[in-house]
Every structure is written in C-alpha cells, then in structure tokens.
C-alpha cells in the first residue's frame, strides 16, 4: 500500500549515484548548448562590449528584411539546397538497389568499401580534392575536356557552375554512405517474396518497382523528411571552403552570411538575428517534417 510514493522516494535515493554520473554531461549541455540558446536573444539587443546590451526590439530583423543582400542570400540558400535534395536524394536509393542486384558478396564488399571512403574525409580535404580535380590548367576534368577537343572551363569561378560543383561534390562524398540505410532496408526484405515473384516470371524492373521500392518506402520517407528538416543548412562547409570572390553573390548562403557579418565585420547582433531567423525556419521545418513523417509512416524524426 505504501509502495507508491515511498517506493518512488526510495528509487530516487537508490538512483542518487546514477544522477551524480549524469551530472557532468547534463552540466556540459546546460552550459554549452542551453546558454547559447538563451544567448540568441542578442538578436533583439544592441551588442556592447561591456556586456550591457540594450534592448533594440525588432530593429535588426527590420534591417535584415529590408536588405537586398539578405534576399539574395535566402534565394541562394534555397536554390543550392533544392538542387542538392532533388538531384542527390534519389542517388543512394538507386545505388542500394543496384548493389542488391549483385550476387557476389565479395564484389559488393569491394565496391562498398571504396565508395564509403569520402564520408570520413573533412570538407577541407574534399574541397582540396575538388579544387585539384577542376583546376583550369591541370585538373583531370579540364584535361579530359581538352583531350576530347573541348575548351577548358572555369568551373569554380562561375556562379552557375560552382553551384553544380556543390551538388556533385556532395554526391561524391555521400552517395555511398547514404546508401547504407537503404541497403540495410533491402536486406530485411523477406527473400521468399522475391522467389515468389521470380516464379511468376517477374522481370528485374518489375521486381524492383513492385517489391523493393514499396518495401523500403518507409525508410525513404524518413530519410527524405530528415533531409528537408535541414534544408536551410545548404552545406556551409562546402560553400565556405570552395567559394571565391568571383562567385560570392551566387553562393553566399545564410551560414556564410552570418559568419561574414558576425565574425569578420563584428556585427554581432545583426548576425545573431540572421542566425536566429535561420534557426526558427529550420525548427519549423523539423517539426513539420516530424509530424508529416509520423502521419505518413508512423515514424517521426525523433
């Protein structure tokens, strides 16, 4: 009878050492994650080096929304992100299906261990590799173009082409690794279903569209919504490491804008406002995709 509250009290007492073990991590998160969240209120203040920031209301947001540069930055973010999602999203799925068609286990392992590699490289390294690959004089791509009688093309200094460089370098980096979840989902499909389809004389494409894709659809939807949730990111590291002054107006995205204004020009409040704007849109997208995904597949983002 006294089990109820007395039991809970005793449980908490017994769990005391566990709470102590939790303390360092929770204190860390409180200081290094929650304090900056609270710090984002700087967007509504005028930064002062003495620490006495005065409230400024929506001033910085008004400046932000009336600035033509900001409009261009939003447009760049959306264009680059959309290009990446629509072109790159299906790739790992196609790759996983292609891998599943291969019988030789050894062959699968060899291909996988090569194409997973770029996932472990930093964006600085990948940028170095792509700058080398696309260099005007020595780059492999331009060498090939010249070899086949074309004219070397300055991929990195043209606004439209560098956006494609972002798309392809992202694909180069993640097509292999991103296929992992889909490969795992395909492996979970009951082989008997395939055998039955084979008996019925279903061809390869018939099998893929009638069995494989429907079976992995929940995984596809979950991964897609997750990607949509991070839509406003557009790949800071890539843009930051590959951009140059010649293409700035075509590639400047929200995160690079925040960096330039905040850390290079010292406009802390204004940059915080731009960052907060991005954060709120991102949060909205994550919640929207979470509930959307829950409705569609019964599985949310978290």
């Amino acid at each position: 009878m006294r089990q109820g509250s007395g039991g809970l009290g005793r449980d908490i007492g017994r769990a005391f050492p566990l709470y102590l073990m939790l303390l360092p991590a929770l204190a860390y998160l409180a200081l290094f994650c929650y304090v900056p969240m609270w710090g984002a209120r700087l967007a509504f203040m005028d930064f002062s080096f003495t620490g006495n920031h005065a409230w400024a209301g929506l001033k910085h947001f008004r400046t932000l929304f009336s600035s033509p540069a900001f409009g261009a930055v939003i447009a760049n973010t959306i264009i680059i992100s959309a290009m990446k999602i629509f072109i790159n999203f299906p790739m790992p799925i196609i790759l996983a299906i292609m891998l599943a068609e291969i019988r030789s286990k050894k062959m699968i392992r060899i291909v996988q261990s090569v194409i997973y590699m770029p996932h472990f490289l930093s964006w600085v390294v990948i940028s170095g590799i792509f700058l080398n690959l696309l260099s005007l004089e020595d780059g492999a791509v331009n060498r090939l173009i010249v070899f086949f009688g074309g004219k070397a093309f300055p991929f990195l200094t043209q606004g439209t082409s560098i956006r494609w460089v972002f798309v392809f370098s992202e694909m180069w980096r993640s097509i292999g690794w991103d296929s992992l979840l889909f490969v795992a989902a395909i492996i979970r499909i009951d082989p008997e279903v395939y055998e039955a389809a084979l008996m019925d004389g279903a061809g390869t494409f018939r099998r893929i569209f009638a069995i494989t894709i429907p079976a992995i659809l929940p995984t596809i939807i979950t991964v897609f919504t997750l990607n949509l949730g991070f839509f406003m990111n557009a790949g800071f590291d890539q843009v930051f490491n590959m951009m140059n002054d010649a293409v700035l107006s075509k590639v400047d995205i929200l995160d690079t804008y925040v960096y330039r204004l905040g850390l290079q020009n010292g406009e802390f409040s204004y940059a915080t406002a731009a960052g907060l704007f991005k954060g709120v849109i991102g949060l909205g997208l994550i919640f929207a995709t979470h509930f959307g995904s829950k409705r569609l597949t019964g599985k949310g983002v978290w």
Partner: protein
Amino acid sequence: MRGSPRSPRARRAGIGTALNYALLFLLAFMTFFPLYNILVVSLTGPAKIAAATGLSVIPRDPSLATYLTLIQIPKVARGLVNSIYITVVGVFVNMSLTCLAAYALSRPRLPGKSYIMVFIIVTMIFEGGLIPDFLLMRDLHLLNKYASVILYKAVNAYYLIIMIRFFEEVPLSLIEAGKMDGVGELRTLFSIVLPVSKAGVATVSLFYCVFHWNEYFRAMIYLTNPDKWPLQVVLRELIVSGDKAAFIGALNYLKYDVGAAQVDMKALKAGVIVLAVLPILLLYPVLLRYFSKGVLSGAVKE
C-alpha cells in the same frame, strides 16, 4: 548439341547485369581516382612536378621531397601535433562524459529518465547559433585555448543515444550479480558494463575521433593564434591562400635543404591533404566495421 539455348530474357538480364557492374565500377573508380591522384602528385619529384596533372597515374621521378619539405615547415609540423593533441584529449573527455551518462540512462527505472532524455534531445534539434557560441567562449575566457576546441560538442546527443543502446544490451543478470556483491555503480560501469560493450565503446570513440580530426571551423574561429591550429586549418589556409611564400614563411623560404623553392605549390597542397587523410586511411578497416554498425544501431528505433 550440348547446352541449352538462352532465352531472350536471360540475355537481356545478362546485359543488364553487365551494365550494373560497369556503372558500379565506374562509381568506385570515380571515388578512388581523385584521392589516388593526390597521392601521386605528392610523390612526384621536383624535376617532374610541373608536368604532373590531375590525370597522372604514376609518380614520375618519385621522391619524398614534398614530405621532407612539409615536415620542416613549422606550421605543418605543429598542425600535426595540435591535431593529435586535440583528438586524443578530446576523445578522452567525450568518452568520460558520454559513458557515465549513458550508463545512468541505460539503467531500467531511472526516475525522471524521460525528462532527462527530452533535455538531451532538444540539443539535437535546436542550437544557439554561431555568434552566441562564440560569445560564450569569449565570456568563459576560452578563446585561443585548446579547451575551446576540445569542449566543442563534448557531448553529442546522437552518439550518447547510440552508447545507451549498446549499454542496454548488457545482460541485466551480469549487473544484478554484481549488485548482490555490493558493487557500486561506478565499479559496475568500469568492471562489468564497459568490458562487455567493447564494440560500443570502439564505435562511439571512433565517431568522436573522426569528428575531432576533421573539425576545422571552430578551431579556426576560436584559436586566434595560428600556432595552435590543427592540421585541417593549416590545410585550409594553404588551399585558400595558395601563396607559397606566405605559407612557408618568407624568411624560411630559402633555407631548406630539399629546396622548398623547387617544390611546387601543387605538390605541397597534395602532401598536406595526404597527411590530413592518413590517420583516417590507417584506421579505415576498423572505421568501416564499427561505423556502419553504429549508424544502423542508431537508426533502428523501437
């Protein structure tokens, strides 16, 4: 006549399979070659470096001149040491905080567990942003200290959850048996849970390890003194600035035995990229094994 005539379907499937193999090989080749080419360029000797291109397959006049020059450049040598220091200390801090917290959260019936999980998961979906993070570091007087980079993402909520999953798999009977003998929670963690979850510890340590090794942006903005920069930041400066004299240091320009003046900028860049990738390459077989397990265990939700 021996052998059965092949049906048109079988022949079509044959072509499809061949095409599938060919495309996968092409993908693997396109992933591998740009990396391999960087290695080739870095190993090409000063006499032939001018002729090395993005299509070079074998290092002509093979020599270690690039690397001999690189290790004499203080920035590079210091960068290597800094990277190793930040990674080793960083992973130690990460694992201490993560394992303690994950153990507590893996215990069944920890009162208030769901609230604590919400507290942790919130840090996955919302962050204060770049400027508030930076100002917090400034307020804590951590700018230009290694601690700023070591403490960046010291607890990663995603990795913490993976660790909890691994700890939850430890048979309860093992832990209960220890409890009977009056073993405390901390001892249970170190003498029972950790030894049984070696795979989990390896997985999560490797996650953190790759994260620290590849991190460059926070190091670049928090560490104002270039002497403290990790290798990735040094590499970024080299790739972005591309100025040999600035990189080597005008005063040191002529005093190298191997003749830095003769070593091409292209080769220096390639050499630093190889140095930055080397640890990842050495660990790659291990990374491959544990990373895929970790990702899949994190993705499979109950």
